[in-house]
């Protein structure tokens, strides 16, 4: 069943590992240690396809209909990433850690402004068989200070974050931007401090939500239903810092009754940019208008993304323009199932229905 011919470099070393662990995973399922729901929503060829689809190749993800797409190692770095993910995959599903609890990294503004995003993420993870915990000591990862140049003020927060999440085996975050902060910027922020190595190692265990589902849990279909036309906005950090392009689209394509439309210029920044949105609010809102115009022209009812910060900004612009397009976080879509019609209403911005 497993065809590794297309994975030229790491195939030999890794295939053994994956095959063994895959067997473990299914043993676990039989033994009831991974809830049956996890199996139910995994694609029948989920493991095989996703191993190929993960970071190594863009073929199958770019073209969900034809899983025999072009396979190519895009770069050495991608190969290394894949190696670590394949390794992780084995590790997650190995018998000892089959029930690994996921530590949820809920960014400070999600905590305060978008609590439902955190709840939706929990419910999706629970549906595919993961237990979640919320380390209550967490606050902010330090990104606002870091991005504004206040590195000495951001540093203690980074150190604090590492202390809070240091013992977690897996960390999942509903924001590509905050994930980027930990994975890509902590090593630089903490360069020359004793915590740098720990930052690098933690960075390998922190995943953006859609990245986690597709690359680590290897689930493309989480059993969601969302009968609407949806466009996806490529959040900059998820796209360019984490390299996530197909993962959220793959998840959306597997949502029942969802009609996915590509919006024009989906990769163009929405203009949020943290403090940029307030210090340069005229530029930021003009960029937001361009984005919302593109969202409208796509004909979508909903605009979704991996980053609540982009959505906060775009939503503010859309509503100011009295647009009919609504925004919803990816987790909000994935959380909705056949019987959650009632909940679906709750997630929408109040007072407006499509």
């Amino acid at each position, binding site marked *: 069943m497993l065809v590794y011919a297309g994975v030229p470099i790491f195939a030999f070393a890794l295939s053994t590992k994956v095959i063994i662990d895959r067997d473990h995973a299914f043993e676990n399922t039989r033994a009831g240690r991974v809830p049956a729901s996890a199996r139910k929503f995994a694609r029948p060829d989920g493991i095989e396809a996703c191993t190929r689809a993960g970071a190594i190749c863009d073929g199958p993800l770019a073209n969900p209909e034809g899983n025999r797409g072009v396979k190519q190692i895009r*770069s050495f770095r991608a190969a290394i990433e894949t190696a670590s993910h394949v390794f992780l995959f084995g590790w997650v599903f190995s018998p000892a850690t089959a029930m690994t609890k996921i530590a949820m990294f*809920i960014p*400070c503004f999600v*905590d*305060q*402004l*978008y*609590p*439902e995003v*955190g*709840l939706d993420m929990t419910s999706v993870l629970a549906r595919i068989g993961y237990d979640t915990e*919320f380390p*209550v000591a*967490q*606050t*902010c990862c*330090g990104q*606002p*200070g870091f*991005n*504004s*140049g*206040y*590195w000495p*003020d*951001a540093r*203690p*927060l980074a150190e604090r974050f590492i202390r809070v999440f240091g013992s977690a085996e897996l960390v999942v975050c509903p924001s590509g931007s905050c994930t980027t902060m930990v994975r890509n910027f902590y090593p630089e922020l903490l360069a020359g401090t004793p915590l740098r190595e720990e930052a690098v190692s933690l960075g390998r265990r922190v995943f953006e939500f859609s990245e986690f589902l597709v690359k680590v849990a290897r689930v493309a279909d989480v059993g969601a239903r969302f009968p609407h036309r949806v466009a996806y906005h490529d959040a*900059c*950090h998820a796209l*360019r*810092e984490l390299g996530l392009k197909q993962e959220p689209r793959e998840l959306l394509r597997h949502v029942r009754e969802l009609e996915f439309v590509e919006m024009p210029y989906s990769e*163009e*920044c929405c*203009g*949020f*940019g*943290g*403090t*940029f*949105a*307030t*210090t*340069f*609010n*005229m*530029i*930021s*809102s*003009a*960029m*937001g208008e*361009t984005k919302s115009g593109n969202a409208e022209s796509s004909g979508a009812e909903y605009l979704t993304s991996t980053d609540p910060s982009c959505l906060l*900004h775009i*939503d*503010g*612009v*859309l509503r*100011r323009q009295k647009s009919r397009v609504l925004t919803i976080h990816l987790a909000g879509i994935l959380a909705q199932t056949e019987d959650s019609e009632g909940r679906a209403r709750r997630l929408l*911005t109040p007072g407006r229905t499509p």
Partner: protein
Amino acid sequence: MSTAAQEFLRAAAIRSADLRHRRTIRQAIDHYDRAIERTRSRFDDWEAARLRCREIKREAVNHLDRYLLEFEGHVRARGGHVFWAETSAEARQYIADLAARRRVLTVVKSKSMVTEEIGLRPALERGGVRVFETDLGEFIVQLRNEPPYHIMTPAMHLTRTEIADLFREKLGGVASDDPQELTAVARGALRGAFFTAEMGVSGANFLVADTGMIALTTNEGNGRLGTSLPRIHVAVAGIEKVIPRIEDLAMLWPVLALSASGQPLACYNTLIGGPRGPDEPDGPEEFHVVLLDNGRSELLADVEQREVLHCIRCGACLNACPVFRTVGGHAYATTYPGPVGSVLTPNLRGGERFQHLPFASSLCGACTDVCPVKIDLHHHLLHNRRNIVRSAKRPTSERIGFKLWRWAMMSPERFAFLSLLGRLALRAIYRLGLEGSMLDPMRSWTKVHAPPRIPEKSFRTLWGEKHGAK
């Protein structure tokens, strides 16, 4: 806030609201993007090409001393002159003096950003010299008496109707806005200048060390004409333009052409190594190369930002930048606008004047994605921000704000309590419809956004209620 920062904000706000401008730029850049997409397929491996170019430039920039001396040696051996200018003023002075000494009355210039950087045209004009920009785009913006909008496409912000109107007003006799006809009008206006000019000024896209030649890329042939007809040719180039070997052009030329305009190669690629030789029928009698430092060696000393000197001035990062596309090239008020300008200018020009530029970015990283020599542009913006904060040039209110932020975020209880207060206040303010008023602490946000929906309970509260934990 410096006055330059305020001017930037004002200019940016005006342009941001200008939908016609946004459409014009979008159209121009889409045109380039389509061409780039087509041409990129000619490369077996575009990433490898970028990597190769970066390595060429890295080698050159890290051995500037050796390669520049090698270049100079070859130029001198062929009878050319090399002048090392430490500052803009020195470079300007050298060229102005030369023009005065040789009784130059007319200068034809091909497009060169470094001559904009040193302010050459006004300096020559002050000495009574007539200066003609011969690149079509530069010619247009010169007629409009404004600086180039874009480092590659100086008149990107103008439609051909506007250009036709301009020509009609300044040159007369334009019937239509047909691009061919407009070009013919400009050509007619410039032809005389080419033949009367005593001096031709050009930039240099590359300085080839091992042969001692300047490599000049144009699409209109104006560079070739302007450097071979007049008696004197002066080439001005930043010291970072040097490359080790002539073979490197095999990689750099196509990569430059693709990134700049989506062409497989630019139309005219010229190598010039000195004045007219004894057995050569044409070419200038004198050949001068002005090597400009103007802050570059300070950038060279900065290990973190040294790679900014790899820049080949293709303009790809400007096209990719959503901020540039929104505020336009003129708002920056710098020689080099866009991402690379926001990285370079605070370093090259020092002082407080341009310190707002690194902050005027959403850090989306589109620039880094397209840079043909793989300069990590948006990370350099971050570094610039950090350096600016470190040098104590930010408002005190902001400093205190971040100290408070840090204090609040160091404790989950403080964070939860203070944000609860904030949420309660905002809920009350928005319920009373006071968004955007002086009472609204988020007014810089609500000025341009509908107020956000403020939830009653935070995630941590909801989680605590559900799981019984604190």
